[in-house]
């Protein structure tokens, strides 16, 4: 491993992850980036669905043992972790898993309650192995009780169940929803918060604990104000298209570019006066029947026509910068490419190129949690399946080499497949044209240079 700065907030913490999809993996990703040693325990019998997808550009017929290292989303959920291929339902697999648990501080899972029972992963099972263990599971509806306790869902199902989908759409049409497994992400965030709280308490009391998290209720918590409104009034708030409830004017307006929009939101009175100071919109300030937000909400459609005429004569960037210069909250509606080339994100070093065993170099996101003194550290990209099996089973679980060998032979443990096979993301050759990431000399293969620069250290203790 590379150097974890000693002052990293979690440099003394080891985390075992049994994670699928997004929720548990992104939680452990954050723990890793702030210094924890995160070990992903991965199964071939119950593979992570993100592993099985593979890269979109990969030819059909490529062996699954390579495909599982290529999903781009996996590069988002798992940077900085180590991967151990281990089947924990066999005798020696379970023994090895218990040895890992005994030498760890935290276990994070997002498993259904039936699978937890079947695999002997209940808190009662594991606290015997490590009484100081901080144990977190986050099934869709929590483990505690209720008719939904054993139900299985996907993120989009949970968004629908939790009321999130019906809040996204036009009031005169069916809801559109959000094109995300929305509850996964805040569930991952909540898991980090819960684990950190438990670590802070354990620092003082020495006590481990069991944390139970309901992803369904996480999604509800994120729209808490809307649910509180429904509870007080007895009526569900309506979806509002691109408008912010109770503020005016707000919306998404056309520009002189095709399919390019600018978002504009006046959220208080000073901002309304700022809007009225923009060249070409001064007449709005003379309309006394627009003085209050109630007036403007009532006249919103008329206001939209005036604003659309103004925005339609400008590009999205021109409109946004002119409005921002006056003090109005506005922004071009970015697409995915705009995001990659955004000077703001560049200044914040949001995107990262990290060394990767399979790819040499891998593009991923940085951290949205920015600390001034003990920042996230980005050491390496997501691991290949089983990349660290031997090392971790020897150094952390304390197994002998011949035990590890026989587990690999019997299929209870798995190593990285074809470790010398190197792939390259097709876009890494040209993406420098739109992103200004710190990048090595263009005349040399990007992957090779980055790999040389970072990976010697990485491989040194393999």
């Amino acid at each position, binding site marked *: 491993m590379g150097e974890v700065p000693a002052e990293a907030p979690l440099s003394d913490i080891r985390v075992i992850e049994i994670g699928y999809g997004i929720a548990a993996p992104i939680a452990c990703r954050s723990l890793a980036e702030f210094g924890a040693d995160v070990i992903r325990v991965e199964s071939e019998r119950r593979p992570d669905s993100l592993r099985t997808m593979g890269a979109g550009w990969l030819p059909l017929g490529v062996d699954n043992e390579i495909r599982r290292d290529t999903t781009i989303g996996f590069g988002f959920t798992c940077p900085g972790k180590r991967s151990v291929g281990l089947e924990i339902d066999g005798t020696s697999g379970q023994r090895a898993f218990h040895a890992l648990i005994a030498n760890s501080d935290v276990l994070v899972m997002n498993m259904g309650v039936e699978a937890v029972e079947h695999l002997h992963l209940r808190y009662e099972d594991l606290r015997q192995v490590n009484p100081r263990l901080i144990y977190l599971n986050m099934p869709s509806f929590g483990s505690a009780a209720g008719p939904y306790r054993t139900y299985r869902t996907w993120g989009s*199902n949970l968004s629908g169940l939790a009321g999130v989908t019906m809040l996204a759409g036009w009031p005169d049409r069916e809801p559109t929803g959000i094109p995300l497994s929305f509850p996964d992400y805040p569930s991952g965030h909540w898991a980090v918060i819960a684990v950190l709280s438990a670590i802070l308490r354990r620092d003082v009391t020495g006590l481990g604990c069991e944390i139970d998290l309901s992803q369904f209720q996480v999604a509800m918590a994120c729209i808490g104000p809307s649910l509180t*409104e*429904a509870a007080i009034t007895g009526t569900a708030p309506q979806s509002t298209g691109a408008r912010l409830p109770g503020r005016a004017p707000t919306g998404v307006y056309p520009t002189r570019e095709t399919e390019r929009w600018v978002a504009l939101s006046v959220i208080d009175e000073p901002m309304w006066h700022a809007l009225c100071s923009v060249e070409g919109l001064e007449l709005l300030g003379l309309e006394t029947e627009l003085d209050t937000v109630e007036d403007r909400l009532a006249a919103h459609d008329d206001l939209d026509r005036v604003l659309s005429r103004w925005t339609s004569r400008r590009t999205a960037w021109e409109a946004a910068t002119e409005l921002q210069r006056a003090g109005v909250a506005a922004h*071009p509606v970015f697409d995915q490419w705009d995001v990659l080339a955004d000077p703001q994100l560049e200044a914040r070093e949001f995107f990262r190129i990290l060394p990767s065993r399979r790819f040499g170099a891998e593009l991923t996101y940085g951290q949205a949690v920015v600390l001034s003194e003990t920042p996230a550290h980005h050491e390496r990209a997501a691991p290949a399946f089983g990349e660290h099996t031997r090392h971790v089973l020897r150094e952390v679980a304390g197994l002998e080499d011949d035990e590890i060998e026989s587990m690999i032979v019997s299929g209870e443990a798995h190593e990285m497949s074809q470790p010398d096979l190197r792939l390259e993301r097709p876009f890494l050759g040209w993406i420098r044209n739109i992103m200004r990431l710190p990048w090595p000399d263009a005349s040399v293969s990007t992957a090779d240079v980055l790999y040389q620069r970072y990976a010697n250290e990485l491989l040194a203790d393999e």
Partner: protein
Amino acid sequence: MSEDEAVRLSTPSAPDVGMLGGLRVLDLAGDSLAYAGRVLVELGADVILIEPPGGCAARRHPPLVTMTTGATVSAFFAYMAAGKRSVTIDDTAHAGRSLLERLIVDADVVLLPDDVDAIKSRSLDETTLRSLNEGLIVTSLTPFGGNGPKRHWKGSELVAWASSGIMAGMGDPDRPPILPGGGIAQSVSSLNATIGTLLALRSRQRTTRGQLVDISMQEGVLSISLESGPLLALEGRSQARIANKRHIGPAHGLFAVQDGSVEIVAILPRQWDAMAEWIRDELGIEEATLDVFRGSQVSRTQFTELINSWVVELAGRYTKEAFFTEAQRRHIPSGLLNSTADLLHHPQLDAVGGWEEVEYVDAGQFRSPRGPISFDGVAVHVGPVPRAGQDNDEIFRTRLGLSEAEILRLHADGVI
């Protein structure tokens, strides 16, 4: 961490005190970090809302709703301020600034207001605050973060979605893009801010120094964009607005039931087999289970219209709750679309106590969703929503040691 702090943080073994019992947080009453303050309340911290005399702007954050007592309150504020204490301080007055500074000297965490300009004009920047208390953790959530060319740009929930790239893929193809409702950008960004705050607390145990937690709402939303974000663009996946998901494939998408819609995702071979059996059992359509329909979803696509005519008929016999229950029993992936009002009486939430009775001081009782987590079987909880300044006496007298006469004079001068 000082010995005093160690003692304060060491009391929380009783569930009532929570995980962060003894942690002192000053919430400067911005909208953006309101949820971070609530999460810290749920974890047991003592969160004090610092409001201007007369109350903070968040008390009038739309929508305003009428309680059964006739009182008009902000649903946003009711949810976000539950369990916080409140003091009123005019920190633009000299005496008020001095009170605020004395509270800061004694605090662990300050949650800054939203507005970058206000932070500067009120001297609430990290350098100034940490010169009063080196161990202080200063948590900031702004539209674009504290550095970079847009650091002074104004923001909103809408701007956060527009700048993240997700919005471009949301909505109907014949209309402009839309944004999610419910204030989700603020919520997820507040969760990032809470994570940063707790990490900074752990760092402080080693270094004794606090630090700045600098959260950008653009990055907060971007970090939840895996399935529609830039990485997928690089893989060649488009981001078209596809409108609603009604009948998007055979036994896949939204289908109408008696009281709304359900979402069915019977894509895998075994999932279709279960769906076909249900159609046969319920509608008596034997041919649904024929081999010609079995296997991969691709092989069924040519029969989409026929298959969905069966699914429509089947779904039409059910309410959404009954359909969902039966589909789950048959291991068919499905969900249903609840409105926020549908969740007010819900079997799962009733079973786990998912709604919490909360008192809004002077305005009456209401219900709001309980925090989503439990520690050792004890679910988190909040407390009453405070009246503006209701804790002035208690906090100024016991924490700052002011006399009754001093408090009266500050009140008479309009400082508190």
